[in-house]
């Protein structure tokens, strides 16, 4: 589905991520773990070319999406980001109604036309984000009045409304309480079961173990080890990963 080959990222000439080659499958959840500043978020932000928004950031190597290299100057960012959604650490609802939050981007991309299609998309997306039952009576109320966990699920629903086939999660639960975290993990699993490729950055190792099929461990800008989540957590091969899992650093 999406794959990187010798991907490097440098900020102002300093390499923050060394050559990384990883492959992500449809219908699977892949967790990227590692201590703060190890390059996992930087790596994630490459996949939908969000690093291009940071001045002085330079991404080398190739990113193959459906077999096509998208790390080129002529890549259409707007089309690409429609298919590769992203959910951020902080919930980022727009100051609009719940309905408008869902419909805003699909409308701009011309994905829906007419009230009927719009209503259907709103319901479908909010159900996929496990939020429908809580908000179905207040779709025209402001999204900013929702709780933090609800806002984050709205952001997931909003991303799914574009019908992406890859969704990137950048520490989606780090600002949330345990119950909201649980609901969002369930949602991420459900998304993968629908055949979407989900990639989640987390510093919470239990979360990675609970939610992911595959795990990649980053350390000091290197992708150190990758494999099945079970194998990573039960039989780490690299000494640095073993140290990290036992809490000896980070």
């Amino acid at each position: 589905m999406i794959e990187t080959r010798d991907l490097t990222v440098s900020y102002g000439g300093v390499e923050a991520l060394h050559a990384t080659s990883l492959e992500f499958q449809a219908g699977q959840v892949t967790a990227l773990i590692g201590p703060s500043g190890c390059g996992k978020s930087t790596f994630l932000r490459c996949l939908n070319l969000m690093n291009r928004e940071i001045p002085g950031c330079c991404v080398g190597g190739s990113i193959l999406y459906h077999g096509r290299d998208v790390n080129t100057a002529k890549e259409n960012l707007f089309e690409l980001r429609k298919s590769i959604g992203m959910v951020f650490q902080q919930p980022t609802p727009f100051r609009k109604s719940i309905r408008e939050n869902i419909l805003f981007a699909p409308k701009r991309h011309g994905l829906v036309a007419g009230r009927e299609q719009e209503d259907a998309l709103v319901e479908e997306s909010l159900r996929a984000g496990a939020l429908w039952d809580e908000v179905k009576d207040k779709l025209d109320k402001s999204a900013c009045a929702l709780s933090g966990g609800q806002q984050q699920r709205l952001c997931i629903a909003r991303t799914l409304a574009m019908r992406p086939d890859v969704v990137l999660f950048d520490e989606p639960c780090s600002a949330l309480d345990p119950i909201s975290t649980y609901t969002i993990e369930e949602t991420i699993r459900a998304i993968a079961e629908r055949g979407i490729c989900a990639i989640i950055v987390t510093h919470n190792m239990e979360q990675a173990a609970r939610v992911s099929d595959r795990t990649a461990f980053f350390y000091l800008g290197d992708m150190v080890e990758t494999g099945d989540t079970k194998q990573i957590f039960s039989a780490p091969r690299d000494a640095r990963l073993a140290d990290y899992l036992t809490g000896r650093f980070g």
Partner: protein
Amino acid sequence: MAKGSGNAAPAPASASAARGFDMAAHVRRINAQDKAATVVLTLIVGFVLLILAAIVVYVLASGAGKLFDLGFLTGKPQQFKEGGGIGPQLFNSFYLLVLTLLISVPISLGAAIFLAEYAPDNRATAIAKTLIETLSSLPSIVVGLFGFLFFVLYLGWGFSIIAGAVALTMFNVPILVRVIQQALENVPRTQRDAALAMGLTRWETTIHVLLPVAMPAIVTGIVLSAGRVFGEAAALIFTAGQSAPMLDFTNFDLSSPACPWNVFRPAETLAVHIWKINSEGVVPDLEAVSNGTAAVLLVCILAFNLLARLVGKLLERRMTSE
């Protein structure tokens, strides 16, 4: 995980006790400081409010007699006799304000969006920002004389309301650009990222996500600049002129000086009227007219502020469905 934070906590207390640190006295001292600061700040604010209230009450009280006098509000100004009104001036003030805002708001929005969202962080941008700030502190008499030489004489517009509006735009743009740019920059980065990550362009992000959030601050900026337009005299004396031809609201001949909508007619505003009758007026009821005009001007500014806030609130509610 932070290392050893759990057992390190009691250490500072025992260490400071060993150095003879008296916690109770320290708490008393900082509490006393806090109280003293509260009292001093309250006094300062109270003093400022008192001066302000005194001026407002004085102006309104001196002009109260004329404030509700319909003949004064709509009447024709007199050159030698008493009983002159301020009808044309009142209309001119609002018309000039609307014209000025029509010119300066679009320019400022564009400039502010460019500086906040598009401009690369380089020397040229820094110079542009400095120039804008310099422009905002330009003395109004300088802008007035420049407007006189360039718009009135060189471009041949004559003393006209459009020359006044353009001159006032030169004050307004820097204030508005600063306020709007600040408002846009204060919108959290995460909002931008979220919109861009949904495949929206920077323009869509600015128009549909950032501007609604920045709306209240933008309205504040417009109110501030409008106050300046209402109150400005020096720059208008040489551009919009000091004469107020009587206006005929049934006249739609845009070339006639009596047509209210003609932008090339001279247009004395309320503030200029106050200046003029005080400096060269010969009417016997000079003081009453001047006081009345001042009171009307004050009420206009207040009314415009309230109106602008109301409109801003409605606009915000529509854009954000709150």
